């Protein structure tokens, strides 16, 4: 039976009705029309549905809606500010880290979460942080480069 849920998404509260067994991903995409998070495998293997839950990257296909209540949800839609892409987004484009684009939102969320916690990661740490996000196009090299460049850009902004 459908229940009412109030979800804290991207700084606001969104009310929606869903079955308790529905995934956060489905509710984000279907109910709230936040279609930036992608549904790739729907079994936590590909990472294209990655969102932040209380600041930590999670695969939203495996989070049940009731488990997301009273927690801060951040999706790819919240990263750009006033139409300006976030440094991770901009560098993904600049460095050629986007090819077909399907893994890109989840990849960016994992990288964003890493940089929140570790503003100056090594390439090894970047590779570990995005290892749950599968990319079939790029071979990852340019994505790692983009995250490194974003870290540098954000570091320069901070000083």
């Amino acid at each position, binding site marked *: 039976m459908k229940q009412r849920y109030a979800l804290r998404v991207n700084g606001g509260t969104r009310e929606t009705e869903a079955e308790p067994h529905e995934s956060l991903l489905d509710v984000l995409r279907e109910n709230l029309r936040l279609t930036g998070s992608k549904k790739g*495998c729907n*079994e936590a*293997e*590909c990472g294209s549905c990655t969102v932040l839950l209380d600041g930590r990257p999670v695969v939203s296909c495996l989070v049940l809606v009731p488990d997301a209540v009273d927690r801060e949800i951040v999706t790819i839609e919240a990263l750009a500010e006033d139409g300006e892409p976030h440094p991770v987004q901009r560098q993904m484009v600049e*460095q*050629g880290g986007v*090819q*077909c*684009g399907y893994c890109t939102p989840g990849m960016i969320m994992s990288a964003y979460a890493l940089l929140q916690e570790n503003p100056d990661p090594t390439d090894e740490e*970047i*590779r*570990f942080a*995005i*290892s*749950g*996000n*599968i*990319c*079939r*196009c*790029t*071979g*990852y*090299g*340019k*994505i*790692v480069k983009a995250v490194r460049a974003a870290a540098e850009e954000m570091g320069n902004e901070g000083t």
Partner: protein
Amino acid sequence: MAIRKGLGIGSMYYGIGYGFSRADIGSAEIEMAEDGTTTVYSGACDMGQGVMTVVTQVAAEELGIEPEQIRVVAADTGSTPDAGPTSGSRATFVQGVAVQNAARELREEILDMASRMLECPRENLDVHRGEVCEVGTDRPMVSVGKVAHQLHFHGRRAAAWGWHDNTTQDVDPETSQGDAYATYGWATQLAEVEVDTETGRVRLTKLVSATDAGKAINPVAVEGQIEGGAAMGLGYGLYEQHILENGVPRTASLAFYLVPTAMDVPDIECEIVEVPDPRGPFGAKGVAEPATIPTTPAILNAIYDAIGIRITETPITPERVFFAIQEAKSRGEFSDD
């Protein structure tokens, strides 16, 4: 842990396009608006290969306008002419020429009208950065948009159609001799691996790839294709195993069918070799599939270099390497020291 390192080389050549007399056609329409914005209707579908970028750059270069002035409408059966699939490493090589042909014809239309507008011989005019100029100068005389406006004023479209047929001859059915493809891509890769002789696990630690691109129209995109292709080659070599049991796939999920992650793909050093091909747009040819092919042979050779055993089955799983080592040991052909 007993780690042994090895180096190996893999080389290949690969037919670009469909070859063997199979239909291999590209086509595009191009139309300029009165502000110079130019729309290319291109049937080639971009699934991450970068063909839309290539189409944009080829059209801009051939027309003499800025890439920012190009808009691409791609892969819409309702509005774009057929260009065949983006496969066989053919999109740049075949569709690139179709787009170049369309842009060249539009440029002729523009110069023809500009010559009448400026009362200047056609052969003295050129298009540079969206402006009609005198040959050898970049002093703007009239913008391409204004010329498009004049064409419209005379009841003509500022539009052109481009077509390119890359269909080749078939080989001799009796002898299999002949030139099956319009051109070929060439690539060599050097792999460095580490083999754990206790577990059989193989890691690719470094890959250097030299690929003949003819001409890299967009070097970043070419590198992306090469790195992505090599990552697929790595998956084919070490990880991706499709198991069928009585016709039922047992590896029907990414949990069992292992695709390389960011931790499996090492730094890939890309060397782009440019030997212009007269049949491609500005000398370019396909690079995508060629990049996947030499990776596994290079890894297999590197494993042989590391442990002196030829593995002959892919993917080169830890089990296969482990049992190959055990077998070699039982024959007295492998020692741990």
